[in-house]
């Protein structure tokens, strides 16, 4: 039996909505003198083991979290959690956690930390910040941030007077997709994506290994589609788990995905397999696309992609004939090459031609619900004295900012110097390409502050380390969930913070106080703010505390119908197959194929991806998850391995085109990868000695990404441009 809504409400009611579980016991069982039994308490909250933000119910016994389960009311979890979600307990009780504030007493990056009180550490940071402000201006402090903590530190930074923040989630992840879909449909596909996979007749995964990226509700829907015999088409140089479910696996030559997409569009237009009515009614620029893709025939694409033209035609027909119930997965980590936006534009155009946007089995429409914005304070931010530099010269860079621009500006001191960095919730050494640039930039700083839970590689470089408590020990801002229906999810502490760690909001507020910015933090505790927010939105706070999630089912209108017409927020009000906005800024209005360099003989393209039990580099030390995957392996094609005399599980070293050597890594000899690629799961080989389990386990893909391309449209990075060779000398 799953926890039904009714049962769960009963449980929640029994806990009285108390956020933090005390110990409650039954002291006497009918007076029979049995030992007192601790009664478990069940407290709902929101997960942060990845960015999916599933609803969680924590089972707490004697003040200890013993089990985490998915909240059945929450659409991202639906009563289930992935391995990482269950492994959240491992983060909470990891003995390697940051326990007190630390101040580095050695040279920058030397990590000769002394323990400090919060007062001392925050005073130190505030003092340095004021000095940088006096000398260079407030804009010279930048923030690299990820996760829920971003809310408070972006607020603090802007109150202080700097607009310079950047999140890896844009340039290093899904930014290109966001830009491409905004240009085409007037909005991004959401986070989590609004994908109607459970109703798809055809699911196309192009460079997206669903299952290995354990995005909870999406995996659930993918399995549902597979169970209902949907045709799965997987385009990947590697035989991923998803490829194991596929009717068609297209082991594409890396860097040629755009050729395949354009060729599919060619076939679909030539054979009249597009949705003529939909295209006429909702799109503009069809003729321009039809003209532009004429040259991209399957025969041409075969030479580029290594996929037989007959297979390109067959799959195009399967896609076309099942329209509009086709899901071309827009992907998440889209930072591949220098033409990321154009590749993603091709995905968007193909989706539109199939009439799959706003249709069952395609991309469903946003729920219709407007909530009044509630800010952390009513006070306006001061106007920065210098222009923001965090978007670089990229005309379509997003609001999240561009991380490599911050690094470059710090290095070059152009257009003005950056002298202070805050890094909150992101492991910069594992997130950003070219670690040498990052390290050199750090040497130019006068202040580097890290706020995190664990001593990740990036944290070890900081002058001051401020230990945040985990998501199971704190309140955070409410999460607005835009699944099929709109909803609100709460994060609340299920146990008290351990050690001397503090919630992110508290750290930002206390630092704000010391900077004379207390007016920007008008609430005493974050719960006060949440209550006020709920009141403004007309939500019963106590109900939210008890249930963890409140849904607004009336907001659900996923498909286009006669009385649910989509609004495209593009300049033309239509789906722009031909983008005037791109044309105006000097870019191709319809995607054109760009050829990328292929590895020379004896070299392999380094590709990387995810494992279902780890999130980036953030979980490799988690005792529960480490146990299941202690290190990564280098996937090498079996023929290549045989030629080189390499045996499965031998240790090898990878060396990239710039001579950078990886840590030793076991080889996985497999048929599941092309001969011209090597694959690593991302995030391994921590260099932080304080991560006792993860330290130097496996190889770090990011270390080998010394070279990167930049997409001139968005600033999205291309990180699949590095070539490696194998050395047996370990």
């Amino acid at each position: 039996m799953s926890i039904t809504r009714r049962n769960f409400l009963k449980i929640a009611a029994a806990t009285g909505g108390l956020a933090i579980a005390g110990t409650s016991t039954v002291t006497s069982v009918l007076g029979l003198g049995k030992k007192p039994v601790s009664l478990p308490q069940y407290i709902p909250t929101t997960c942060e083991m990845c960015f999916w933000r599933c609803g969680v119910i924590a089972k707490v016994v004697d003040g200890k979290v013993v089990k985490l389960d998915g909240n059945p009311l929450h659409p991202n979890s639906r009563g289930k959690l992935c391995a990482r979600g269950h492994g959240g307990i491992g983060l909470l009780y990891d003995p390697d956690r940051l326990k007190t504030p630390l101040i580095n007493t050695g040279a920058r990056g030397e990590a000769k930390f002394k323990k400090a009180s919060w007062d001392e550490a925050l005073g130190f940071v505030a003092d340095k910040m004021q000095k940088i402000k006096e000398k260079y201006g407030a804009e010279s402090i930048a923030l690299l941030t990820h996760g829920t903590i971003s809310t408070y530190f972006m607020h603090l930074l802007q109150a202080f007077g700097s607009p310079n923040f950047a999140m890896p989630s844009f340039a290093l992840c899904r930014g290109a997709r966001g830009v491409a879909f905004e240009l085409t449909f007037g909005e991004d596909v959401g986070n989590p994506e609004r994908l109607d996979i459970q109703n798809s007749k055809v699911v196309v995964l192009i460079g997206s290994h669903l299952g290995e990226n354990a995005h909870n509700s999406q995996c659930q829907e993918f399995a549902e589609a597979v169970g209902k015999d949907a045709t799965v088409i997987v385009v990947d140089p590697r035989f991923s788990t998803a490829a194991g479910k596929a009717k068609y696996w297209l082991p594409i030559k890396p860097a040629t995905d755009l050729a395949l997409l354009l060729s599919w569009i060619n076939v679909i237009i030539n054979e009249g397999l597009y949705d003529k009515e939909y295209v006429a009614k909702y799109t503009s620029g069809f003729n321009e696309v039809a003209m532009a893709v004429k040259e991209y025939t399957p025969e041409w694409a075969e030479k580029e992609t290594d996929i037989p033209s007959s297979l390109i035609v067959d799959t195009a027909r399967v896609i076309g004939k099942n329209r509009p119930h086709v899901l071309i997965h827009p992907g998440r980590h889209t930072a591949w090459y220098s033409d990321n936006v154009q590749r993603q534009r091709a995905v968007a155009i193909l989706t539109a031609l199939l009439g799959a946007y706003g249709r069952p089995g395609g991309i469903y429409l946003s729920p219709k619900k407007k909530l009044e914005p509630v800010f952390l304070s009513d006070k306006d931010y001061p106007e920065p004295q210098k222009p923001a530099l965090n978007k670089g010269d990229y005309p379509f860079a997003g609001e999240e900012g561009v991380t490599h621009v911050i690094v470059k500006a710090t290095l070059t001191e152009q257009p003005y110097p950056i002298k202070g960095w805050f890094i909150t919730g992101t492991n910069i050494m594992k997130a950003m390409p070219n670690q040498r640039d990052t390290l050199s930039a750090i040497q130019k700083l006068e202040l580097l502050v890290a706020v995190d839970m664990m001593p990740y590689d990036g944290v070890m470089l900081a002058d001051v380390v401020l230990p945040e408590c985990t998501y199971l020990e704190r309140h955070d801002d409410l999460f607005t969930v835009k699944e099929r229906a709109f909803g609100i999810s709460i994060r609340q502490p299920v146990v008290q913070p351990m050690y001397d760690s503090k919630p992110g909001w508290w750290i930002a507020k206390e630092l704000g106080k010391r900077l004379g910015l207390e007016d920007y933090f008008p609430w005493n505790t974050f719960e006060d703010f949440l209550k006020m927010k709920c009141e403004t939105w007309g939500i019963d706070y106590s109900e939210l505390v008890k249930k963890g999630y409140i849904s607004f089912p009336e907001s659900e209108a996923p498909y286009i119908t006669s009385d649910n017409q989509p609004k495209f927020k593009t300049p033309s009000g239509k789906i722009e197959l031909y983008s005037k906005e791109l044309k105006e800024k000097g870019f191709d209005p319809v995607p054109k194929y760009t050829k990328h360099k292929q590895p020379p003989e004896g070299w392999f393209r380094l590709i990387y991806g995810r494992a279902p039990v780890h999130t980036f580099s953030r979980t490799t030390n988690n005792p529960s998850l480490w146990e299941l995957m202690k290190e990564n392996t280098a996937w090498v094609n079996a023929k290549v391995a045989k030629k080189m005399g390499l045996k499965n599980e031998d240790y090898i070293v990878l060396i990239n085109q710039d001579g950078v050597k990886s840590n030793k890594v076991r080889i996985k000899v497999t048929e599941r990868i092309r001969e011209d690629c090597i694959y690593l799961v991302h995030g391994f080989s921590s260099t932080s000695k304080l991560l006792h389990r993860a330290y130097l386990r496996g190889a770090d893909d990011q270390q080998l990404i010394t070279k990167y391309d930049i997409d001139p449209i968005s600033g999205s990075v291309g990180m699949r441009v590095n070539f490696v060779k194998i050395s047996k000398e370990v």
Partner: protein
Amino acid sequence: MPKYVMVIDVERCIGCMACVIACKKENNVADGYFRTRVVEEVRGEFPYLKMELRSELCNHCENAPCIDACPTRASHRAKDGTVQIDKKKCIGCKACILACPYDARYSTPEGVADKCTFCEHRIKEGKKPACVETCLGKSRIFGDLDDPNSEVSQLLKKHDAAVRLEFAGTKPRVFYINKKFAGGL
């Protein structure tokens, strides 16, 4: 007596490993041990490949060699028909571990035999085993085979189900449907 069985729809397993961790946390399984695993089997040559992801656990066999091998009756058939271990009676002789053809048992750091219990404590409360509850793909399905209306009964009526090492004659209560490869279990 109910006949609890698990049906594993191999095709719906996406290898997310949620079951493995959920089981560990639910049952407080010792570090370094697992009561269930997901085995990946790949056959063929690039690019003509097939892959099967197969969850494995104690089969709660009807003819359970572990029960026969146990000298103290610590391994026994419980009232609900599942195969269980009475830790108080276990003397750590490991005979059951050797007797099990499925490699489903291990010896805990305290020296007693341990394995999947089908989450008997949860069954008692009317819940599904933890691995089933959290299975993202709904690849693990649990229920009473004696109830003709149960999902497991319906599924086993519809599919040709396989069991692991059928030739061992243990009559497992874990069934596999939609298998890609016959045998080889």
